């Protein structure tokens, strides 16, 4: 399980969990679960285009996720309905399907990008993952007060001179980085589980915000390590373990709280 050729996968998965657990806490506090659902979908065509044009996946995914942020902000500014947003997301998924189809590796690539390829990481993926895993928590921690305050009490934030719009934008950009980084590992459909399962459980269990943040990261690491190990032992897809264990964590924490 810890053979040298799998070492990169362990490292990248751990870094992804670090960033996702951290970002997930802010998603829960700021009630931004829709953005956490939408941004991986927006990143999907980027990953597919990278596969088609032979570019590094991290670049395609990051660019597309930033594009997704722009799209979300634009749709929100124009006060578009649920229907418009849902249609745009679905069209992005379809665009990804087109790119994958043209790349000629349709069947395999669809599965890998939707449900993840936890053992797919190579040595080249470690450095970008390390950079992102440092950047995402650093930015979020640096902006801890405005990020939390503008969500919990917009009025107070206004009094303190915090520009809510800018904070929101910055948060979405960081979330896009975290989502794009997680996509190749967990798959576009399960990024949400990795972000929200541990963070939702942590926020239900922990007392203070910093304890919740730390617990969220710890649970995310535990989740992704369990998924890796179980996937290796059973030869079942890691996405199955990520999705179901995240639900178990969340439901379990809610039951304990009750």
């Amino acid at each position: 399980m810890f053979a040298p050729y799998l070492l990169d996968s362990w490292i990248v998965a751990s870094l992804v969990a670090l960033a996702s657990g951290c970002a997930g806490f802010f998603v829960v506090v700021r009630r931004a679960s829709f953005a956490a659902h939408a941004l991986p979908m927006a990143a999907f065509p980027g990953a597919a285009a990278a596969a088609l044009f032979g570019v590094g996946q991290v670049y395609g995914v990051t660019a597309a996720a930033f594009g997704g942020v722009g799209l979300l902000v634009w749709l929100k500014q124009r006060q578009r309905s649920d229907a418009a947003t849902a249609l745009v997301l679905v069209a992005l998924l379809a665009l990804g399907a087109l790119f994958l189809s043209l790349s000629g590796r349709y069947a395999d690539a669809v599965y890998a990008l939707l449900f993840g390829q936890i053992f797919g990481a190579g040595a080249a993926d470690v450095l970008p993952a390390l950079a992102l895993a440092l950047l995402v928590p650093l930015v979020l921690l640096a902006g801890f007060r405005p990020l939390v305050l503008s969500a919990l009490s917009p009025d107070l934030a206004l009094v303190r001179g915090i520009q809510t719009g800018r904070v929101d934008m910055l948060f979405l950009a960081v979330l896009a980085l975290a989502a794009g980084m997680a996509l190749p590992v967990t798959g576009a459909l399960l990024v949400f589980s990795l972000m929200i399962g541990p963070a939702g459980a942590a926020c239900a269990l922990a007392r203070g915000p910093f304890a919740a943040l730390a617990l969220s990261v710890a649970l995310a690491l535990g989740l992704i390590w369990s998924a890796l190990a179980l996937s290796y032992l059973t030869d079942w897809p890691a996405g199955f373990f990520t999705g179901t264990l995240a639900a178990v964590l969340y439901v379990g924490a809610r039951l304990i709280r009750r």
Partner: protein
Amino acid sequence: MFEGFFASQPVQNALLIGAAAALLSGVIGVFTVLRGQAFAGHALADVSSAGGALALLLGASPMLGFFGLGLAGALGLAQRGKGDGDLAAGILLGAGLGITALLLHFAVTLRGVAGAASSIMFGSLFATPPGIAWLALGGAVAGLALLIVLARPLLLASVDAELAATRGVNVRLVGGVYLVLLALAVTLSAMAVGAILSTALLIGPASAALRLARRPGVAIGLAALIGVGCCWGGVVLAYASYGWTPGHVWPVSFFITALVLLVYAASAWRTP
């Protein structure tokens, strides 16, 4: 280039299923949008993918699986409590998609179903057997017939449940029948464009029609028309795409989804 178009058996099936899916989804979609359940319909489709994958694994038609799980999801939707809904729903959705991942994995490894993931998630309109195509059309016609009977009370219950109740409409019964029909519509759309894209057929034509038409009756007809137009247009474009990239057909669900988005954007442009 279209000499063989109508003579081709896969094309005939694709046109049949596309029409069946677009008709029922377009009509049901109007009620879904009026009830403000656009995202619920989306979630339902995602969950139904697990049923489609299970059916593939068992060697049955995905149609049965989509419908079974779509129905279960629709009932869950009806039972859903208030508050904290987004997080919990998203987490459960993730668990469902995780199970889909496992079932698709087994369908490929144990049964050797090629392209299981792409056919369930993104549809396989051209690969559907003729028997299933006719079954789909039958289901759509039956669903539409039921809907015509129920149209007035359902419309009233969708717009204003309390008013409907005082007028003597059995809101629970009407809502239950609506959920069954919603599951059927999601099933047919999932057959046509795939589980995660089926929202396009459910929400797109209905939203565009509701922007363009003032009266609900007109909107329902228009939604069906737009849906069928987008589906058939997508089939034609996919057929034509064989000539653009020699020997390779572009995914038909891409064209259908793109056409739906275009029509919706055009309708939003006209009525800002």
